[in-house]
């Protein structure tokens, strides 16, 4: 049974999506529980696999039994069919994606009932399909198969965003243009790699590439690498390909943003890490210094510009979208530091940021559900109306700022350590600036939401009635916020047992 676990991770949400769309015709009420069930199965499988991987190393699975074949003259056995792999690099992200998707699916029910009344089953089918795509990208061991899952995820997210009101169509269209370009660039890059290596399997490609590079045939591989990189950057909204993201997430239905914002960009970052660390090798990254310094400068710029824009926002959802953009800069920069603490930081931050963004958008969703809008000026007295939600919000913002002992502190610690080791001081400055900006925004919100109203406990002041979000939304939000602290305290364990082993052995300590 355990050898089937990797495929169960994908099958859960895939079957959930199909069944939700199908049963929706005659039993609309069944769609939501079916999706939740599929995600729960997927999460359980992913969780079990973490322990298996930590004990026994990478788990490989050949779809349809099309396994390995030994070719005379080749050292490595050649993989004929599609392989899916759970290894040290992706096992934590699988848990994060399926876990966050599970919590979010529970969380979104009330939101969807109000925002998308009558269209619930389509929403849940798309939701589940999106998660299938994201899990597929993360788990696959085949660079073409990765493209297929990338499109599954992208198409369902275009539709999810277009479900929003107002300018959502335009935002979805912009995203579609950028997303399609990114996917095309990626596919083109895969074409170059395939032309030189004759295989799409990641294990095989990574075994063949060093020999090709040594024999001087690096031109085509370099072009392929750059194309794949640009594709991943467009998908993750890395500066300067970021223009589509704030509008897309701000105009998407709140329930859609709650699943897209934490996961979609993080999975794209994972794609980049996968290509950098296992498909190509880290020596390759270190020996292409032109791209390295460019990527680091762009990361710092991404952080600084996103921080600057977040200061000028008046809408909570848009503000949060700019946070997503600056966090992308953290991860890309950390990966391109190409040293041990830098890569560790990037890998920890992929998981940590998925959790932080999820908690942030959940809290914002609760506020929107009760207040109907998310302008900063509308938040007056929100701390009295929704104390529990706002407590979760404050914890989440503390994690984003990097206050210990939340997870944001530790990932940032590794990133700064890596930057100090590499002597990239502009990246250190950008990281610190971003923390400060987020602190300013948190206290601006506290001032508006708490201090700027007459305190209701004083006699003569108007009472502010409690109006907390419904429990089905509140419990996932609080659980996620508490998870940030637990994740922070567990960082050391995760790094020692899993992430340290995902780092390429060739790295200097």
């Amino acid at each position, binding site marked *: 049974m355990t050898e089937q676990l990797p495929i169960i991770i994908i099958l859960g949400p895939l079957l959930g999506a199909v069944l939700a769309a199908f049963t929706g015709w005659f039993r609309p009420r069944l769609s939501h529980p079916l999706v939740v069930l599929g995600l729960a199965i997927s999460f359980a499988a992913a969780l079990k696999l973490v322990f298996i991987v930590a004990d026994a190393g990478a788990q490989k699975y050949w779809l349809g039994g099309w396994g390995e074949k030994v070719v005379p003259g080749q050292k490595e056995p050649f993989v004929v069919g599609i392989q899916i792999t759970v290894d040290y690099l992706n096992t934590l992200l699988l848990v994060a994606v399926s876990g966050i998707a599970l919590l979010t699916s529970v969380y979104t029910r009330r939101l969807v009932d109000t925002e998308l009344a009558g269209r619930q089953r389509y929403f849940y089918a798309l939701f589940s399909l999106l998660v299938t795509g994201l899990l597929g990208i993360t788990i696959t061991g085949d660079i073409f198969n990765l493209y297929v899952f990338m499109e599954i995820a992208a198409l369902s997210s275009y539709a999810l965003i277009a479900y929003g009101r107002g300018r959502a169509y335009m935002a979805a269209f912009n995203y579609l243009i950028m997303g399609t370009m990114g996917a095309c660039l990626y596919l083109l890059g895969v074409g170059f790699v395939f032309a030189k290596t004759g295989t799409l399997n990641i294990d095989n490609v990574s075994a063949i590439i060093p020999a090709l590079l040594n024999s001087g045939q690096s031109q085509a591989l370099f072009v392929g690498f750059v194309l794949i990189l640009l594709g991943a950057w467009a998908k993750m909204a890395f500066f300067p390909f970021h223009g589509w993201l704030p509008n897309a997430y701000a105009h998407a239905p709140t329930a859609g943003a709650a699943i897209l914002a934490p996961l979609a960009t993080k999975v794209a970052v994972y794609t980049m890490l996968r290509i950098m660390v296992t498909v190509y090798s880290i020596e390759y990254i270190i020996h292409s210094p032109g791209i390295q310094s460019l990527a680091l400068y762009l990361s710092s710029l991404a952080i600084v510009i996103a921080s600057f824009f977040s200061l000028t926002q008046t809408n909570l959802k848009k503000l949060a979208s700019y946070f997503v953009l600056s966090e992308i800069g953290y991860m890309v920069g950390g990966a391109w530091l190409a040293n041990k603490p830098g890569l560790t930081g990037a890998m920890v931050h992929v998981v940590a940021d998925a959790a932080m963004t999820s908690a942030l958008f959940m809290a914002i969703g609760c506020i929107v559900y009760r207040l109907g809008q998310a302008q900063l000026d509308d938040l007056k007295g929100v701390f009295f109306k929704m104390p529990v939600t706002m407590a979760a919000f404050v914890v989440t913002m503390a994690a984003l700022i990097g206050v210990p002992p939340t997870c944001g502190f530790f990932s940032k610690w590794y990133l700064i350590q890596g930057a100090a080791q590499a002597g990239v001081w502009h990246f250190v400055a950008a990281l610190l600036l971003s923390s400060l900006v987020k602190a300013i925004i948190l*206290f601006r919100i506290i001032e508006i939401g708490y201090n700027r109203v007459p305190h209701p406990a004083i006699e003569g002041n108007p009472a502010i009635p409690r109006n907390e979000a419904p429990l089905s939304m509140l419990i996932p939000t609080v659980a996620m916020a508490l998870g940030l602290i637990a994740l922070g305290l567990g960082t050391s364990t995760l790094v020692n047992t899993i992430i340290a082993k995902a780092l390429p052995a060739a790295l200097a300590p």
Partner: protein
Amino acid sequence: METIHSFTPVWIILTSSVAALLVALLGRWPNVRESCIFAAAAIKLGLLLSLAPAVLDGKLYEFEVMELLPNVGLAFRVDALGLMFALVSVSLWIPTTIFSMGFLRPLKRHAQTRFFFFFAIAISSAVGVAFSANLLTLFIFYEALSLSTYPLVTHHQDDDAIKGGRKYLTYLLGTSIALALPAMIIVYQQTGNLDFTNGGVFADGTSTTLLVVLLVMFLFGFAKAGLMPFHAWLPGAMVAPAPVSALLHAVAVVKVGVFSIIRVLTGIFGVDLLANTPSLSTIVCVLAAITLIVASLIALTQDNIKSRLAYSTIGQLSYIILGVGLATKSGIAGAALHIPMHAFGKITLFLCAGAIYQACGAKCISEIHGLGRKLPLTMTAFFIGSLCVIGLPPTGGFVSKWYLLNGSLDSAQQWAFAVFLTSSLLNAAYFLPIVYKAFFATPTDPARLDKTKEPPPLTVVPLFITSAGCVLLFFFSGKLFQFANTFAEMYTPQ
């Protein structure tokens, strides 16, 4: 050094957090709520005293809760300095709570439960800083203290409070994130070690430039110590209610800043390194000396009582930093001793300022002419408190300043002797006129004076306790000196 593995330090930190939870739950019954605080403070004090004999013997209590980063954990270690600081904070928590009850209840202040809740959390954080075994643990509690005191600073929730709170966070969070955090990470990246180690963590031959940069980042990064030019948050924080200014902005918060700097200088850099690298020692001494003199001069110009006290605090904190910067045994002992001595003196002054405000609504020195005749108890306490801060016998402040002066003569920075003396004269110049005016000047506003009478016992009793403390510390300074000396001996080369 002998170490004792014990969970007690964690219990000590947790008692006030538990008290905070009980305060939050029992907010509806004020008397029950406040009894929880007294119970917690008493338990805490008892536990602290139970550690004292072994610590004075040169032993250390240690406990590591969990690992956070390779080689760095959430870990506690109780040494003489930490124990002394914790004892001071917790023992002053009791009179301050009595005072808070007397101060907040008659004025029918809102959100008293919130006030006592965050107060207890702040005490937990301060003791957490005192017991930290490494820089990371210290940083965690340092930040917790900044965040938990913000609601206390903005307690009044009016425009002034919001402005003061904004300044408070900008300075404290800003410097700690932008300076102390990267400095700490660079130390970790260079040495792989953040434990406070006798002799410092740096390997021989670390470049002096790097050390200087790190030193400056730490000195300014722990802005709670109020080194100029990062001092402006403290006068801004005076918008807080009087008990907050008294315990937090004369004792817990500001002393945590100085304490962090002492830990960095003795445990990360090491006294050896300071003494043998003239540039390091000089930087510390010069920055502290400038703050010392300038803050005292500014204090002379302040008419608002609390802001004069705030600038006085800024100056007195630099005594401690200067004392450690001297890198001599008596300098360090004097600096350590100045923590409790100044704490008792300054808390008395702040409580008096609160009592004066409560009695007649006066906030400025120009308003209190002749008040001494109406408030003899309060103003006598004020007089004793100012003697202690100036450093005159028979108060504790004399003892610590004595050792500081000794330390400056032993060191390479003998000019510090003149700085200490000049500053003490300035201290006298800004405190004694207040006392003089209160007792002997002609009243400016006789109508107000007629309505004034001595505030209720809940307000006056704490004044009596702390001012008696100032005097007792002079006669029984030996016990405290043992703490300071144990610490100084542990960290200075024999």
